[in-house]
C-alpha cells in the first residue's frame, strides 16, 4: 500500500513503530497531489517546502518518543483558516493576496501536535455555497466522478481527502458545509456543537452558526482530529469552558441501551429513492447492533431553510462590512472619494453570491423590515431548537440522510439560487440549533456516487454521535473502494 492511502490511525501506527517516516508520508501525499490535482482541483496553494520541514521536525519528535497521534500526519486546510505566512483567500478576490500574521487556534493546535500542513484547499467564496462553484479561483470536482460537484462549501477539503491527497482536512460548517461535501465525496465529516471548537482565525461568515470541524476517511480518524482541535480558547468568547472528553474512547461496539430516532420529516418528498434505500439500510444496521429505533418528529423542519437564509445573510452582511479596502484585502486604488472607495472595492472584490447574500441580509436588518424578517426568523429558530430538545428527550441520536440526492453535475444548479439553497434542507437545522452532526459514508448510487448518512446529537454529546457512527461504519462494512482517478 502506498503511504498516501493510509488513514491517520494507520499512518500514526506506522510512524510510531518506525516503519514509516513523516517525510516519506508527506512526500507520498505531495506526489499524489502532483499526480491527480490537475483533475480534482482541490488545492489553491500547496506548500511543499514548509510541509517537508514540518515533516522532519515531526520525525525528530517521534524519535524522542513523546509524540501525539497527529504528529507527522499531513493535512489540508480549508482556505478560510488563517495560516501564518501562507496566503488565505477565503475563495475570494477580496482576499487574493491576504497573508495572515497569525495562525487560527485550530491550526496552532494541529501544528502543536506536530501535524504537517500540505496547503490550502478550495471553497465557495466566504463559505457561501453548496458546490464550491462560487470559488473565485478553481472549482474542485468529485473524485468519484469528474464533472460532478464535490459539494460545498468545504468542497476542496472533501475532494482532497476522497482523492487520497491527504488523510484529513479541516473545514467549516455554517449550514452543512462539512457534512454535505463529506456525504457527496464518500468520507466522514463532523460539525461539532457550537462552542466546542475555537473559531479564532476562522474568517467569519455567520457567527451564530459557524463551526470548524474535521473531514477524514473514517470515524476513528475523525475522533482523533476532533480531540486535537476541541476545547476552550480565551481568544474566542463563544468557545465553552468545559472538559473535553476523549472521543476515541467512544468507539466501542454494541448499541445496547442506545435510542436512535428517525425524524419522519427528513424522509419526505424530494428524497432520492437511492438515498432513502441507503439510510433505511443504515437504520437496520444500527438495530442489529442493539439500538432501539423510534420514530420522532421535528415539525418545523420545513421552515429551516427560510430561517437560515435570513439569519445567515443578516450576520454575513454585518461580518462582511469589514471589507472596506482600508486595512487589508483588495482596494480599488483609482477612485477619489471615500464612498466610491468603499463601493468599488466591494463591488469588484465580491462575487455574485456574496453580493446577493449581503443584499438579502442588509434588507432583512434594515429599518421597517427587521421585525418581519430577522426577528421573526430568530423566533422560529427558538421553535426549531425546542423541537430538537423534545426529540432528544425521546432518543440519543437522530439518523437521517445528509443531502436529498447524490452529487449532481457541475453547473446544474448555478442559475437558480433558491434551488441550490433548498439542497441544504437536511443539514441547516443542526446549525440553527447549535447541535453536533456527522456524515458517515452509507453506500453508493448505481452511478457510483457516494451517499452519506447523517447522525445528529444533543449539545456536547459528540460521544454518543461517535459511538453510533462507529457502529454504523463497522456494521455497514463497506467494501474498500477507491475513486477511479489515476
Amino acid at each position, binding site marked *: 500500500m502506498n503511504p498516501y492511502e493510509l488513514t491517520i490511525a494507520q499512518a500514526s501506527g506506522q510512524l510510531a513503530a518506525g516503519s514509516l517516516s513523516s517525510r516519506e508520508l508527506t512526500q507520498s501525499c505531495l506526489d499524489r497531489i502532483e499526480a491527480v490535482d490537475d483533475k480534482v482541483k482541490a488545492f489553491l496553494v500547496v506548500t511543499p517546502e514548509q510541509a517537508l520541514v514540518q515533516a522532519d521536525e515531526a520525525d525528530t519528535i517521534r524519535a524522542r518518543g513523546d509524540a501525539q497521534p497527529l504528529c507527522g500526519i499531513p493535512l489540508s486546510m480549508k482556505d478560510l483558516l488563517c495560516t501564518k505566512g501562507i496566503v488565505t483567500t477565503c475563495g475570494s478576490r477580496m482576499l487574493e493576496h491576504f497573508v495572515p500574521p497569525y495562525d487560527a487556534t485550530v491550526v496552532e493546535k494541529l501544528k502543536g501536535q506536530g501535524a504537517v500542513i500540505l496547503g490550502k484547499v478550495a471553497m465557495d467564496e466566504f463559505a457561501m455555497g453548496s458546490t464550491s462553484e462560487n470559488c473565485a479561483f478553481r472549482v474542485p470536482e468529485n473524485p468519484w466522478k469528474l464533472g460532478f460537484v464535490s459539494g460545498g462549501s468545504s468542497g476542496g477539503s472533501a475532494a482532497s481527502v476522497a482523492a487520497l491527497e491527504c488523510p484529513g482536512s479541516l473545514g467549516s460548517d455554517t449550514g452543512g458545509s462539512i457534512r454535505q461535501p463529506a456525504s457527496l465525496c464518500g468520507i466522514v465529516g463532523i460539525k461539532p456543537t457550537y462552542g466546542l471548537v475555537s473559531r479564532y482565525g476562522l474568517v467569519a461568515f455567520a457567527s451564530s452558526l459557524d463551526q470548524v470541524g474535521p473531514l477524514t476517511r473514517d470515524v476513528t480518524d475523525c475522533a482523533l482530529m476532533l480531540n486535537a482541535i476541541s476545547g476552550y480558547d*480565551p481568544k474566542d468568547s463563544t468557545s465553552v469552558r468545559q472538559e473535553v472528553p476523549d472521543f476515541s474512547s467512544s468507539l466501542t461496539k454494541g448499541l445496547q441501551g442506545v435510542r436512535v430516532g428517525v425524524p419522519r420529516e427528513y424522509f419526505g418528498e424530494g428524497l432520492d429513492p437511492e438515498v432513502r434505500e441507503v439510510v433505511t439500510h443504515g437504520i437496520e444496521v444500527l438495530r442489529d447492533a442493539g439500538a432501539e429505533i423510534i420514530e420522532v418528529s421535528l415539525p418545523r423542519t420545513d421552515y429551516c*431553510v427560510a430561517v437560515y437564509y435570513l439569519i445567515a445573510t443578516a450576520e454575513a452582511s454585518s461580518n462582511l462590512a469589514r471589507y472596506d479596502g482600508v486595512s487589508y484585502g483588495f482596494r480599488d486604488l483609482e477612485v477619489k472619494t471615500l464612498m466610491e472607495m468603499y463601493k468599488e472595492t466591494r*463591488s469588484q472584490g465580491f462575487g455574485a453570491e456574496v453580493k446577493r447574500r449581503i443584499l438579502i441580509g442588509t434588507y432583512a436588518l434594515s429599518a421597517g423590515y427587521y421585525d418581519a424578517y430577522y426577528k421573526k426568523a430568530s423566533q*422560529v429558530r427558538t421553535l426549531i431548537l425546542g423541537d430538537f430538545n423534545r426529540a432528544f428527550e425521546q432518543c440519543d441520536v437522530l439518523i437521517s440522510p445528509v443531502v436529498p440526492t447524490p452529487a449532481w453535475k457541475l453547473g446544474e444548479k448555478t442559475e437558480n439560487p433558491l434551488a441550490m439553497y433548498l439542497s441544504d434542507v437536511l443539514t441547516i437545522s443542526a446549525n440553527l440549533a447549535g447541535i453536533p452532526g456527522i456524515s458517515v459514508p452509507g453506500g453508493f448510487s448505481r452511478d457510483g456516487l457516494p451517499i452519506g448518512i447523517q447522525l445528529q446529537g444533543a449539545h456536547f454529546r459528540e460521544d454518543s454521535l461517535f459511538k453510533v457512527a462507529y457502529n454504523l461504519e463497522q456494521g455497514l462494512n463497506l467494501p474498500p473502494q477507491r475513486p477511479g482517478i489515476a
Partner: protein
Amino acid sequence: MKITKEEVERVAHLARLNLSAQELETITGQLDTILSYVAKLDELDTAGVQAMTHAFSVSNAFREDRVTDSLARQEALANGPCQNGEAFVVPRII
C-alpha cells in the same frame, strides 16, 4: 412583488455596493423569489416566542484586563492595500 428595483438600489447603497443595470435586473428578480419563499415563516404563530440569541445558556465571557503581546505595527500594516509605514492611507474624509 416583494421587492422593487428602487428598494434594491437603496439596500445596495446601505451595503456599499454598486450594481450595474444588468446586475440590478437579475438580483431584483432573485431577491424577489427568495423573499417570497421566506414569507412562509408567516404561517407560524410566534406571538410571545423569545427570539433565539444562543443555542444554550451562556453567561458573559469576562477576562482579566491584562496587557498582552499584540501585533507589531509593521505586521499589522503589512496587508494594507495603501499604507505609508505608519498608518493606513485613505482618500480625504473631511
